[in-house]
């Protein structure tokens, strides 16, 4: 028996005795203690749903997710490199369903805070006592005017949400003749997965090195320098991909020439054979009413992940206005999901949430088919500033890439996927 079940037997024995609530009605099931609706089945939302259900089975947990299965963004760059298949990074939601989480395949379109309902694209609205939003990021297409239509978005891919675009970008790379140019445009920080673009450059270069050695990767970075593990990536590029990767800092995309397949910078255009543009990002659309920072991100109470804009609405993952030194990562979203789940379960049971959460971020980057390097940090709650802060002296990066860390990357994936979905 877990720690929380033991205490909840005391706190809510009657409700617990009522057993699991899996009723599919619109109102919370009659005998459930409360209903928690989770929006988004990625690293943040699926973890939150799993932990709420594990900690208090008497809570009715509904997960709203449009996709049939979880597709991991971490490791998805290896699909572009040709070292992993889509199946390798895809996992089902059946583990959560076996635990009693009801997974609703639908898209949440709006949160009615007054009536405590989540509106869905297809199905009836879902009533909730508390709602947890983990919608990831959406794109600020307005920053790239020519990209503001579906045809352009279907041609110039981001592949920054793992799924069909990942497979489609791989096909574009496969179809590109040797001697071609792949251009990856990186937006200004903050964006989802700081080291992701630089890892992607490695993966595509690894593919070119093996199969299309006359080809080239051009990395157009809006930032002044590599935003994560900079010296490590630059060494990997020099050691493994000499002449294959050209890095251009301070190269902010202002638009895209879709037909001409080029990125428009302030002063010149950069033509590509395969064009991969990461637009600037903001909180996922369903969280838009709760955006409080820079018109892009949502601020929360770091003890409960409750929105600063609305009671009963919790937000986590990439939609958040990050705390100092906290990246937008799958690792962080998984950590947010657990702290949030524990707080939500405490609040539902009339208890105080943990006042001293400690979380760890660990991001591995695969720089070849087998070499990896990491960045890690430990974050604790600062009472004075009411935010999470990195513990001084802790954390750091690898001394360099290694095969051992490549193995640990695969362990990380297996274990975090289980912690999120099993």
């Amino acid at each position, binding site marked *: 028996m877990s*720690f929380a079940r033991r205490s909840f037997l005391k706190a809510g024995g009657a409700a617990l005795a009522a057993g699991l609530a899996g009723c599919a009605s619109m109102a919370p099931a009659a005998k459930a203690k409360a209903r928690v609706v989770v929006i988004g089945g990625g690293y943040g939302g699926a973890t939150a749903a799993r932990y709420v259900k594990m900690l208090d089975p008497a809570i009715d947990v509904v997960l709203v997710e449009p996709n049939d299965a979880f597709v991991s963004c971490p490791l998805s760059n290896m699909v572009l490199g040709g070292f992993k298949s889509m199946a390798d990074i895809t996992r089902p939601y059946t583990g959560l369903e076996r635990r009693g989480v009801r997974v609703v395949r639908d898209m949440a379109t709006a949160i009615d805070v007054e009536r405590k309902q989540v509106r869905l694209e297809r199905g009836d609205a879902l009533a909730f006592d508390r709602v947890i939003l983990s919608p990831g990021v959406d794109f600020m297409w307005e920053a790239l005017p020519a990209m503001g239509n579906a045809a352009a978005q279907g041609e110039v891919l981001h592949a920054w949400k793992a799924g069909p675009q990942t497979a489609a970008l791989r096909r574009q790379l496969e179809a590109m003749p040797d001697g071609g140019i792949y251009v990856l445009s990186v937006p200004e920080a903050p964006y989802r997965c700081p080291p992701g673009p630089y890892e992607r450059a490695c993966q595509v270069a690894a593919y070119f090195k093996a199969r299309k050695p006359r080809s080239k990767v051009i990395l157009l970075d809006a930032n002044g320098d590599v935003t994560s593990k900079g010296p490590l990536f630059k060494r990997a590029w020099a050691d493994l991909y000499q002449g294959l990767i050209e890095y251009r800092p301070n190269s902010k995309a202002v638009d895209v020439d879709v037909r001409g397949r080029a990125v428009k910078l*302030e002063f010149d255009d950069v033509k590509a054979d395969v064009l991969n543009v990461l637009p600037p990002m903001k909180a996922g659309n369903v969280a838009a009413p709760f955006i409080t920072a820079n018109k892009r991100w949502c601020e929360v109470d770091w003890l409960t992940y409750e929105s600063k804009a609305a009671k009963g609405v919790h937000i986590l993952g990439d939609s958040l206005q990050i705390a100092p030194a906290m990246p937008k990562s799958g690792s962080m979203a998984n950590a947010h999901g657990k702290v949030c789940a524990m707080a939500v379960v405490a609040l539902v049971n009339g208890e105080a949430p943990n006042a001293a959460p*400690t979380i*760890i971020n660990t991001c591995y980057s695969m720089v070849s088919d087998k070499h990896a390097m990491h960045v890690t940090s430990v974050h604790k709650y600062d009472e004075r500033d009411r935010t999470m802060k990195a*513990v001084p*002296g802790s*954390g750091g990066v690898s001394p360099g890439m290694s095969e051992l860390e490549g193995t640990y990357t695969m362990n*990380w994936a297996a*274990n*975090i996927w289980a912690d999120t979905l099993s």
Partner: protein
Amino acid sequence: MRTRFAMLAATLAGAAFAQQPAPPSPAFAASNVTPKGVASMATACAMCHGSGGMPAAGSTVAPLAGRPAQGTVDAMKAFKEGKRDATIMHQIAKGYSDAEIAAIAAYFAARKEAP
């Protein structure tokens, strides 16, 4: 041209930064070593060591669940003091007090079943 502006901006930013007082050291909340606080802290280990400290199928990393507490404490102490080689644990161990490490070690030692 752009480079020069960027350099100027960087210099100004540097100057502004230099004039600011050093940020105060963090005011971390007192660690919560109640059963719930420890369980919360221990969940952070899951992404590498498995949910509940039990590695997933195919993972080669050391399990934490069911491991005698003293072994975990000794390992964490050695990581923290730089006396044991590691790729990452020496950096993570420095984020925890001795009391937190002892509590997390005891928590995992007592875990027998998968979550």
